[in-house]
């Protein structure tokens, strides 16, 4: 496979994953605004930070308003991480690697682009938002479905999968890192009345507000939420789950190529950490520091994969 093709697959799936994650973040943000009586536009600050575009937003808009934030996150093409930009970039990468994709996967991607480009072409009214967010989740879900249902489990699949889970791990860790201050004060004060809306919003932004209840008895507890999103391998957006997948994909590549590279060691090390630590220790030693470390290592892994498999040179 061409190095450029591996690169295109990796980024195609990163962008599609990102588009979906941004839609979830917006969804959670809208929910907070709806359910909390004293909701302020400041709540969008956290959403923009989680999306990693707080400063980019500041460069475009003087004031922080709900409408501007939503517009910026969903359809502003000056924002490289807006849903529209991600879909465009994902589809451009898909065109570039067209020969590596099944017809089903390509068509799902192309149709997603056609539909969302039309839907996001004009400013959105508040009442249209639920429908748009639903469409984004549905379109990206269709791409994933076509991909899983039709692609050979070969190197193409693994590079694409690594892109998906690298992006997802990055996203989940950012959401937690932005909100860790909501979780922290409560760790020691179990049972006090806490900001349930904020906690629910964390879970909602990873579509886990229901499944959390299936796994952990009782109400929202900071340590449980952190455990769920970081260490629980059953949770499909947790860091542990993402790394279980990434390590699996990399091992397949190593077996296929008959060669282990630096990126394999890095991924194994990250995964080992996630499997061996417990949430109490992590919180005691600093959740923020842990997440910062994780984000850095996750980025480093991406660089090592691109070097090891000759994405660019």
């Amino acid at each position, binding site marked *: 496979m*061409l190095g*450029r093709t*591996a690169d295109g697959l990796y980024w195609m799936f990163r962008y599609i994953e990102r588009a979906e994650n941004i839609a979830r973040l917006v969804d959670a943000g809208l929910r907070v605004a709806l359910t909390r009586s004293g909701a302020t536009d400041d709540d969008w600050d956290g959403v923009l930070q989680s999306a990693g575009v707080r400063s980019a937003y500041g460069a475009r808009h003087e004031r922080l308003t709900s409408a501007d934030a939503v517009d910026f996150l969903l359809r502003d093409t000056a924002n490289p991480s807006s849903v529209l930009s991600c879909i465009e970039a994902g589809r*451009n990468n898909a065109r570039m690697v*067209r020969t590596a994709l099944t017809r089903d996967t390509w*068509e799902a991607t*192309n149709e997603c682009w056609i539909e969302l480009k039309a839907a996001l072409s004009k400013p959105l009214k508040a009442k249209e938002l639920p429908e748009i967010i639903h469409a984004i989740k549905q379109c990206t879900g269709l791409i994933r479905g076509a991909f899983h249902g039709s692609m050979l489990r070969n*190197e193409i699949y693994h590079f694409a999968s690594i892109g998906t889970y690298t992006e997802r791990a990055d996203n989940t860790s950012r959401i937690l890192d932005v909100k860790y201050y909501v979780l922290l004060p409560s760790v020691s004060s179990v049972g006090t009345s806490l900001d349930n809306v904020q906690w629910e919003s964390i879970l909602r932004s990873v579509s886990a507000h229901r499944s959390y209840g299936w796994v952990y008895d009782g109400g929202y507890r900071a340590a449980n939420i952190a455990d769920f999103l970081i260490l629980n391998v059953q949770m499909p957006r947790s860091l542990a789950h993402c790394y279980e997948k990434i390590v699996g994909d990399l091992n397949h590549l190593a077996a296929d*190529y008959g060669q282990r590279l630096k990126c394999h060691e890095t991924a194994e090390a990250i995964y080992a950490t996630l499997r061996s630590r417990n949430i109490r220790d992590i919180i005691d030693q600093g959740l923020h520091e842990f997440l910062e470390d994780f984000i850095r290592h996750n980025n480093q892994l991406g660089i090592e994969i691109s070097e090891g498999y*000759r994405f660019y040179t």
Partner: protein
Amino acid sequence: MMDADGRPRQPYVDYHDWYAQQDPALLAAKSKEAEHIFRKTGITFNVYGHSESAEKLIPFDIVPRIISGKEWRRLAQGIEQRVVALNAFLYDIYHKQEIIRAGRIPRQLISNNAAFLPEMIGVRPPGGVYTHIVGTDIVRTGENQFYVLEDNARTPSGVSYMLENRETMLQMFPELFHRNKVQRVEDYPSLLRQSLQSLAPPGCDGTPRVAILTPGIYNSAYYEHSFLADMMGVELVEGSDLRVIDGKVKMRTTRGYQAIDVLYRRVDDDYLDPLTFNPESALGVPGIMDVYRAGNITIANAPGTGISDDKAIYSYMPEIVEFYTGRKALLENVPTWRCSEEESLAYVLEHLAELVVKEVHGSGGYGMLVGPAASKAELEAFEAKLRARPDNYIAQPTLALSTVPVLVENGIAPRHVDLRPYVLVGDKVKIIPGGLTRVALKEGSLVVNSSQGGGTKDTWVLED
């Protein structure tokens, strides 16, 4: 579809019966469905001059153009003769130039021509083949009268439409293919791969590795490049993937660099090698021409092939065919006035309103004048251009092009068409039965180019 007495022409007899039984509303719905299939598959082209995201569909007409087996055999013989002559001409032009010594074509036609590449003098491409893939544009003006309009010998495009049009028709009207025995075009990608592999460089051992070189996703024909690579099962490479290492052209793969034996390039000569041609080009491969001259890679079509399909050369094709094959050309040329010749220029200027005038190096229907359709002001403007640079133009009579039926809002109506059959030259010459029929969708229009509002339709050659 009909003859002068209002009866369906022989190859259309069955289709005509079938059509008579169809519900017009259903056909209109099918036509919409076809558009949807094309859109979702991404069978689009980019229009230059529009924003990069402007991807357009080429309109597809669901009424097939039908050619009888007998008609086709005659055409195919003429095309093969012409393609053989083109390759012989190219070999001669880049070697002894006997045709010039024999006084059949003027020397300055070659030496002053930008499409002639001095870098190719004395180079013998693998198998002696220069133009591996040819698209010969043909028009019909009467029952038995065909003319060659153009020989596209550099990088003819459109073959993906031939294939997708057939695929779409098979999906939408399977019953038509039960009733009519239509010759297959679906083998084109594998025939192309075999044909290219048969001309691998002599030093290649094992199965020759083929790749398609594309300028990238913003190129107007990118869809076709990726489609062909996909169907042929070969890599689709860009210049940035390739590098000359140890005298071979190699592509960067996730496992390291791997040699390419045959490169089907969809990049123009000028951009192929920044060390030899345009130094600004980022689309090509520095040093590829050295590898080529050393005989270590096959480039299809060969660099410098453009000298054979130039519109000024075109007017000499009857002489060229006769010179190299020893026989009169089976297919006729459209009578052509070379405006570089004083007498011709005078005639053209006098009859401008009746003629079609084309730029010698133009393509895609740009920069051309259709006299009968032009306004007085347009004619005057063109006259000035002609006087300023007469050698930049040729002129041809406006042909009474044949029409075929297309589906319009209220039933079917006649529209003008041309036909581009695709020819593969490897160890043998293969002509795909059918080709791309381009249709001028505007009533009365003669311009079939997709960049000018033309559409396409499936082309059937019947087995008979």
